[in-house]
């Protein structure tokens, strides 16, 4: 169901950006609901970062337009409710993490009385409490990215843009970011996630869009984009004629050793198939629904 205008965190139509003869973005239209976690995917140079910069008012579109949090792109009042982690993050290396967060809390107009508490919570959330008073210049790249995530989360933003938020993080850091994204979603914050890591997007996002050469080439829920079930693969005991007839009611079983693969079985029909097999006394050792992964679908779209 399409969200109503008032419920939209992002509502843009036909955004375009050209640099002379080069079209960085040709046609990007997005409607993202408040509280939604949205994944923006595409190969390098597809126009993802330019699109994010247009949404944030850092770059002026040469075509199209729309709103962010109900206000025109680049509006100052909307920016008071936005958090942003750039892809190429850099913070004041002569400041401590606490000082950087304090500085941004001032820019973000976080009420003075709430700042110390908000900063302590964020330092704890991004795992920097112990190094909060060390200079950022002494931090590893991953720790600097954690500072950036903390800066983006300051002041309870209504939407957070994370551009490749785990590019410098180790597996533990990536898991932490996934948990942070889920926590943001739980408190109703919209998240716009720009990432090359498809598994990350698959695990955290409600909806996605795939952009290529400045255009959105696929969009919707992950299930919509990935496509329906490809069938089911079953490892079964001895099959008599009745059991084979039962399988044939769902499709054409293709045997391979102990395994039977039936193409085209809808995901929602699989439990009924399993129930019927069990009722018919067939031993069931394994059931594997067959689906396309987001990565497979992404590659198909890119090669199309």
């Amino acid at each position, binding site marked *: 169901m399409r969200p109503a205008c008032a419920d939209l965190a992002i509502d843009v139509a036909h955004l375009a950006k050209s640099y002379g003869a080069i079209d960085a973005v040709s046609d990007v239209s997005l409607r993202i609901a408040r509280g939604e976690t949205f994944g923006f995917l595409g190969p390098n140079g597809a126009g993802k970062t330019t699109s994010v910069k247009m949404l944030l008012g*850092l770059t002026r579109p040469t075509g199209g337009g729309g709103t962010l949090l109900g206000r025109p792109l680049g509006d100052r009042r909307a920016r008071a409710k936005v958090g942003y982690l750039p892809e190429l993050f850099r913070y004041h290396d002569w400041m401590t993490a606490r000082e950087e967060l304090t500085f941004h809390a001032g820019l973000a107009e976080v009420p003075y009385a709430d700042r110390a508490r908000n900063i302590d919570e964020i330092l704890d959330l991004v795992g920097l409490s112990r190094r909060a008073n060390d200079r950022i210049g002494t931090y590893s790249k991953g720790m600097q990215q954690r500072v950036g995530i903390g800066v983006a989360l300051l002041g309870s933003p209504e939407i957070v843009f994370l551009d490749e938020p785990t590019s410098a993080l180790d597996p533990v850091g990536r898991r932490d970011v996934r948990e942070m994204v889920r926590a943001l979603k739980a408190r109703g914050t919209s998240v716009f996630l720009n990432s090359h890591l498809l598994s990350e997007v698959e695990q955290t996002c409600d909806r996605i869009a795939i952009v290529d050469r400045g255009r959105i080439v696929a969009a919707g829920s992950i299930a919509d984009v990935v496509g329906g079930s490809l069938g089911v693969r079953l490892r079964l005991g001895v099959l008599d004629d009745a059991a084979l007839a039962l399988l044939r009611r769902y499709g054409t079983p293709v045997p391979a050793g102990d395994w039977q693969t039936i193409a085209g079985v809808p995901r929602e029909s699989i439990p009924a198939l399993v129930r019927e097999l069990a009722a018919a006394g067939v031993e069931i050792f394994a059931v594997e629904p067959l689906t396309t992964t987001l990565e497979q679908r992404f590659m198909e779209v890119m090669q199309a």
Partner: protein
Amino acid sequence: MTILGIASLTLHEMIRRRLILVAAILTVVVALLTGFAFHALATKLYHGHPLPHVQVLAIAAQLLTLVAYMFSLVFALGGAFLAAPALAGDVDTGLLLPMLTRPVRRVDIVLGKFLGLAVFLSVYAFGCGLLEFAIVRATTGYWPPHPFVALGYLSGVAIVMVAATLLFASRLSMVASGIASVVLYGLAWIVGVASDIGANAHIQAMVDAGTISQLLLPSDAFWRTAVYHLEPAALIAGLHGNAPFMVATPPPLAMLLWSFGWIVVVVAAACWSFATRDF
């Protein structure tokens, strides 16, 4: 409020990066070295006798304009080399991106940087200028006629350079904006010297070139006004036209008004240019 916050950030950065400490130490070293030279001038015996005091004062006044030129060069280059990284450097590295997505006006960022750098360079100019004057007075007894006015105009040289560099830095890279303003500064100075030569030789085209140069980058107009206020009346009376480090006739009031207006217009242009660019 954001302007003051950005200005404060700019000053803090210079303190934390030990720029102010290094500048202060080098300034004291330079002042002490020039102090030895002025002391030697005052105590040196010529044919068994010290120089007459009035002659010591005259030479000290001329030497002080040379020292002032050295400092003006430091202020001008300081203005360029501090302003370029302060704006273009922060853009080049991406440091400004998360700041620009806050509810701040881009204009405030430029004005904050300008204010922070102008305050720092002015305080630095007055600090090292007064230190130098004190040393000259202690060693030779000479004290320039209008030290505070002169230092104000020397600060103007730095502020002109900050404004010009911020304008370039609003669109160009850090290196390009720094180099562009330093080249313009050098050009303005040398055209000013050529203008003096043209005035002495009655070549109007060279005089006009100097005027145009001062209109385009008024650092030379501020420098000349500063020197004029450092020179004692007796020295000015003895000059036959301007020389590279001596000024018999300061720029007219209209040129000074233009110069102050130029700073306002160039800073406004830098604000507009920065506010309308893409990142």
